[in-house]
């Protein structure tokens, strides 16, 4: 009985590769939304496997808030070079300069929400009809309702109450001019699956994910990296700790966790024992109970 048997990682991989190949076949101009985080790195790795020995034909699209960790940008450039793929950068700074969006003010100012405009502008400028992302359904409650092929109207908006039914493996990517799809090939993966897969496939990651020393402050229970992008209150005290990151968001909003995990095995042990969700360290989700749903409806990742 065990002979024709896939373990769960092999089954998830097969599903994701199938979805990526459907995107390639059903759309004219697809792209991978690449944040530099582990999920989009895994997605890119799966795309590489899906078309081997051919190169990935999709460009990687990075929405650069200008507040990224420098490690993320260095990793992105090295990966693009290695895979020989095209990189397209949508710059939030440019959107600000053009007056498309206004920079938030104040202590907790973040460019997170501004990304949506830059993302939609980039999709429109390059006429992408499918944008693949590394979002997972286990990440957040409104993401649990996402389809693999998620339809967006010509304003880039998501209508969660009126989604197309998605049956078996029959994906429907039909759309009108000006509309596009967001596609989530790793929808069914959990954080643990992603880490186990990274270990099994020996996938390279930015150094941020592993324990390192960093200068930090603590705000509302979150450890934030000291950087030129972080607005600080006078009474906030800097200190140095050994930390790592569970997600790679913008510097001013992504919380570090205290950790000495320096290998993938260590990280997996740590996640197995952890009692907090990975987005729990993201200040952008804590703004309100429906913060993610509201942003997603407007066209966020």
């Amino acid at each position, binding site marked *: 009985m065990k002979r024709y*048997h896939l373990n*769960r990682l092999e089954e998830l991989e097969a599903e994701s590769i199938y979805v990526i190949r459907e995107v390639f076949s059903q759309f004219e101009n697809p792209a991978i939304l690449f944040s530099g985080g582990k999920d989009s790195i895994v997605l890119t790795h799966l795309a590489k496997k899906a078309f081997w*020995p051919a190169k990935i034909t999709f460009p990687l699209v990075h929405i650069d808030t200008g507040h990224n960790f420098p490690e993320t940008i260095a990793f992105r450039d090295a990966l693009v070079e290695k895979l020989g793929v095209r990189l397209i950068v949508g710059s939030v700074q440019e959107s600000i300069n053009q007056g498309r969006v206004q920079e938030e003010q104040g202590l907790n100012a973040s460019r997170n929400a501004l990304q949506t405009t830059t993302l939609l502008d980039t999709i429109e400028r390059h006429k992408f009809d499918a944008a693949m992302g590394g979002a997972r359904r286990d990440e957040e409650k409104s993401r*649990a309702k996402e389809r693999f092929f998620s339809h967006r109207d010509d304003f880039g908006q998501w209508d969660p*109450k009126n989604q*197309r*039914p*998605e049956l078996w493996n029959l994906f*429907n990517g039909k759309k009108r001019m000006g509309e596009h799809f967001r596609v989530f090939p790793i929808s069914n993966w959990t954080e643990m699956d992603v880490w186990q897969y990274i270990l099994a496939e020996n996938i390279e990651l930015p150094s941020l994910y592993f324990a390192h020393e960093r200068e930090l402050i603590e705000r509302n229970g979150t450890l934030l990296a000291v950087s030129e992008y972080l607005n600080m209150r006078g009474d906030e005290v800097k200190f140095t700790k050994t930390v790592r990151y569970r997600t790679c968001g913008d510097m001013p909003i992504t919380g570090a966790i205290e950790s000495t995990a320096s290998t993938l095995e260590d990280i997996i042990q740590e996640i*197995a024992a952890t009692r907090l969700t990975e987005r729990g360290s993201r200040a952008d989700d804590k703004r309100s109970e429906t913060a993610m749903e509201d942003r997603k409806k407007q066209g966020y990742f």
Partner: protein
Amino acid sequence: MEERFHTEGYLDMELLRFTTAGSVDDGKSTLIGRLLYDSKSIFEDQLEAVKSSSEKKGLVHIDLSLLTDGLKDEREQGITIDVAYRYFATPKRKFIIADTPGHIQYTRNMITGASTANLALILVDARKGVMEQTYRHSFIASLLQIPHIIVCVNKMDLVDYDQKVFNDIVSQYEDFAAKMDVKDIRFIPISALKGDNVVNRSENMDWYDGSTLLYTLENIHIGSDQNHLDARFPVQTVIRPHSDQYHDFRGYAGRVAGGVFRKGDEVVVLPSGFRSKIKSLFVGDSEKEEVFPPMSVTMTLEDDIDISRGDMLAKVNNQPDLNQDVEAMICWLNNRPLNPSAKYVLRHTTNEMRAMVKEIVYKLDISTLNRVQGDTTIQINDIFRARIRTTKPVLMDSYRTNRNTGSIILVDESSNETVAAGMII
């Protein structure tokens, strides 16, 4: 958590996909919350969020159903609108739950959730017994050929854990189930609210000597749910690297939809009928001796043949039907009724063509399973048997023998929406 996490065992875990269905208020969300909670799959920050929402609503207990209601409207109205996917794992298996709403108007979501499930969990309120919705859900599970059904008789705490109540519901359900096509049905008396027989054995129902729900989910045999007999390989796309190193490489990419393909096997390309032998099989860059469902692979053949998306590879002595007339059980999923004179796009494996619904053989009354003849108006949530005519031949098997090559969807050409799901007879 002191004990060391076992990477080895975890890597080898199987995946079980199940769908949950129930009527309004029969405690489905609470049950899922209970499974997540008792299997320690809920994180502290999620629990904190639910605690504070429960307090805001003035509840005394933590409302576990809040864990699964995702959208704003759902939490405000206390209902589930759309299919939500949940994940949890025990040391034995990883589970994907397609949590579907129970309202009549959302039957289409139930069908969506059921289409990829190995198992259906059906909830019955012990106080109310088997209801019309129970029949509807069970029938859909059997129609979509979900191999296993678990009927959870919930809220046993509200009927004093009475064995007679449970037995009556079991026999009532069995009478109905005799008319359906399900191989494996099990019954478990539970209280999702109190936790009886969900993860932990109930101390209130000594008379029940079966397994708890979680134990059943962990141990039910799913190894034979895939078709390993009839080799089918629908081609998704052709990979041509045009690089110096792989100048002549021509790989056919796709997901094995049935049977087993081995290196050296003779295959027939459909619909052209050309024959060749398998030269090599790849998953990514790693070469394989044999491939089987649901693997995504790349195949090369000994001969250069014209093959493109929508073609299918099979074995010479075991081929799918090739026909422009398709007879299927269809569920209508769209608010716009079926237009008998309209052409729809039919999608089947990696193929797509235009099609018309030529004849409605009968409609089905889901609560009685009676066939209704002569009624040809088809509206959302209707289930009917139909004859479809396509503009080019479909390479099909019956849904019963193969879910992958026996399923179709119809797409409305004007709205681009998926309007129907069909199971080929």
